[in-house]
């Protein structure tokens, strides 16, 4: 078998990229060792925000939200601009967020500082007794990872992309710095271009290609929780409380309250849910919205934050191996970034350049010791 481009990893990054490349007329194949979304994507918290603290991530996320809107309308999956509401508890936090808001406004993201009372109007069940202000951007939002991922995969296939599930990349054949093919559990696929979109497993793919530079991406266990479904409209936006254990929570289309807190384990490939998380998430959520104490939890689960030292992904070309690209290490915000990441990487592959600030995610920055300002991470 032959394919012009092989993407290793069928998460949201792999399928949005496959769709973007197929749309540009490229012949592309996605290899997924289990099923589409089975990595981190189907385990994510659904949140999509532009409230970042650096220029590059704000710009990329602004573009991403435009694309989320466009594709959700075209493909018909749920994406809602219900906003992100950061609860702030003291003057120092307010000062910091004022600075972020200024930067976000500069690039056209309409975040503003609101009073606790205004926050309560947005989410009436909120307890605002400790809140002094909130950072509110109504154009942030959320999407359903199951519908979104399968929609991108389906549309990519319509455009001729091949998606092979239960097909694991076992090795990458490289001769004199040129890629020849990918060995899988189902045979060899001949190709000249490989994209590592394996996120939490990215280091294993890098090792297969024997890339000579250091790209530290490690898997950390994070967990999510969902409650029994409630009538819609209880919690429309994503609520964030950095004070209460980096908590984030919102209501899904189906009605359950979904979210998590910053209980982290790793590096590890273990995915056993922990009691510590269950306890801490209950504590944080009921601090933010006391009445959630009356609700039953349906499920908790674990997934990976694929983390780099500055919590920014590695996106770009690896020069030493011709036509080897990487887009991995998305920490807790790879779902939201995916459409823009797909666009900039497809730009790079097909046109050799992109308008989006891809340099920020330069995979060589670790080797050079040029870490970025740490990206704002929840959970």
């Amino acid at each position: 078998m032959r394919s012009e481009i092989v993407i290793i990893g069928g998460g949201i990054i792999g399928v949005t990229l496959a769709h973007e490349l197929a749309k540009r007329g490229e012949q592309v194949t996605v290899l997924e060792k289990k099923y589409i979304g089975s990595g981190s994507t189907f385990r994510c918290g659904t949140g999509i925000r532009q409230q970042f603290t650096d220029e590059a991530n704000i710009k990329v996320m602004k573009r991403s939200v435009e694309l989320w809107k466009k594709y959700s309308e075209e493909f018909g999956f749920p994406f809602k601009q219900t906003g992100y509401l950061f609860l702030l508890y003291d003057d120092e936090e307010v000062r910091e967020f004022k600075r972020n808001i200024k930067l976000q406004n500069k690039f056209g993201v309409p975040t503003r500082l609101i009073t606790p009372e205004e926050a309560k109007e947005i989410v009436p069940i909120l307890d605002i007794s400790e809140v002094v202000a909130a950072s509110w951007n109504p154009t942030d939002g959320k999407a359903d990872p199951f519908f979104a991922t399968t929609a991108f995969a389906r549309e990519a296939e319509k455009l001729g992309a091949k998606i092979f599930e239960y097909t694991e990349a076992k090795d990458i054949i490289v001769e004199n710095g040129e890629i020849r093919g990918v060995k899988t559990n189902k045979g060899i696929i001949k190709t000249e271009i490989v994209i590592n979109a394996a996120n939490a497993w990215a280091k294993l793919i890098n090792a297969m290609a024997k890339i000579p530079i250091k790209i530290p991406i490690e898997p950390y266990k994070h967990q999510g929780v969902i409650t029994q479904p409630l009538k819609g409209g209880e919690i429309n936006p994503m609520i964030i409380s950095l004070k209460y254990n980096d908590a984030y929570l919102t209501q899904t289309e189906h009605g359950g309250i979904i979210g998590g807190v910053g209980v982290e384990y790793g590096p590890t490939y273990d995915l056993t849910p922990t009691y510590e998380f269950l306890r801490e998430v209950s504590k944080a959520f009921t601090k933010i919205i006391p009445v959630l104490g009356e609700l039953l939890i349906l499920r908790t689960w674990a997934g990976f934050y694929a983390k780099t030292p500055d919590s920014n992904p590695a996106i770009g070309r690896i020069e030493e191996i011709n036509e080897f690209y990487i887009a991995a290490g998305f920490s807790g915000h790879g779902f939201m970034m995916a459409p823009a990441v797909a666009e900039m990487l497809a730009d790079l592959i097909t046109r050799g350049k992109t308008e989006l600030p891809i340099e920020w995610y330069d995979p060589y920055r670790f080797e050079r010791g040029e870490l970025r300002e740490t990206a704002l991470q929840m959970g």
Partner: protein
Amino acid sequence: MLVKLMRLTEHPILNFQEKRGRKITIYFEGQPIEAYEGETIVMALHAAGIRVLGYSVHKHRPRGLFCAIGKCASCLMTVNGIPNVRTCITLVEDGMKIERQKDKPKLPPTVKPPKFKEAKKVSGDIVIIGGGPAGLMAAINAADAGAKVILLDENPMLGGQLVKQTHKFFGKREQFAGVRGVKIAEILEEEVRKRENIEIFLETSAIMLLQDGDEKLVVGVRKNKELIEFRGKAVIVATGAMEKMIPFEGNDLPGVYGAGAIQTLMNTYGVKPGDRVLIVGAGNVGLILAYQLIQAGVDVKAIVEAMPKIGGYFVHAAKIRRLGVPILTRHTILRAEGKEKVERAVVAQIDEKWRSIPGTEKVFDVDVIALAVGLRPSIELLHQVGCQIKYVPELGGHVVIRDSRMETTIKGIFVAGDSAGIEEATTAMLEGKIAGIAAALEIGTASSEWFKEIEKAQKELDEFRAGPFGRKVLEGIKKVVVE
């Protein structure tokens, strides 16, 4: 006046007048209803003729009770403003306000911010989840073998399925043959309560099972509210089973009940399930249920059985036939009809390929359809903690791999009774005994003398399973037991 009608005041075996607690009042959608302390919300509602407990979210179809032991979520209601309460295992309290849910529920508008305290911590040598015959026997034997035992059950009473078995048991005398199930439950409970090294927690659901350092951690929730951390060196899971449902039109109508739920209604709480019943399934459970219904003064219209032969013991079947109840083999239920609850059942004959034969339909005017079509093991906690699982139809579905001493693939986690594979109370007790002793041996509180007791129980199990009804189970056990 309905109230009096649905409550059993006379029963040949059970005396409910004596058993009933203080009379109190609860409010169903504002309307006062009489209830008795010690009964669950659903029982009080059913006694008042209320069968529709809520409506499904999307199609707004009426919902009624199904399992009556807290395992299926078809009885969720809003109680004192709190949504999604399992009303089949929640006891009534004076002045309680109960509402049906017609949509996805809303949260109550205000509550006081909760005060955080550390979870209550309870430690012992062995934590036993489930107080049915398996769990009770495990507790008694582990305690006698020197272990400090913690026993929890999410229902408000001990005994598991036994508390509703009013019939006399088969088997050997040592295993309580000839004794009624309810009586066995009483005897075992008394034994358990006698032992000072057994601590009992009722109305306490185990929601998580974990390895915690060298210990096992069982996360429990008491009365839907209080978080309790149970720690022990070993855990025995004896969580029993869950009634199976079969597909047919209208199978979600209130009045389509699991056999166990009907027994709970009439035998545990003295509430008549209805007036006219069709039973689906002629295994022992279906046959015994027919007999118990007749005892309670309920009209059993027929039993339908898809197989060409009756599955249960011949004596049971003969008794039912003598009482004039037709047993229709090679028949199945096509649909349940009725507006808000079951009003009729339509059955038909089936051919070798299990297709219904047109023209053979029969209509029964019934208000209850009892499903006695088998059980499946409750293995959720074992699955969650990571025990190896296998699908073994002979044992009722997915079960855990274990050794001959009931230890699963995770050291220190044992299984016993129906949760290890669907069988009977007799075998559940023997497995409980083995698991209790094996756990005590493993953690070192029991002397090696106790090995003999395990061997004895294993021999008794072998003898019990040597009968014709044991063959299938033995086939299944071969697939899950490893050394």
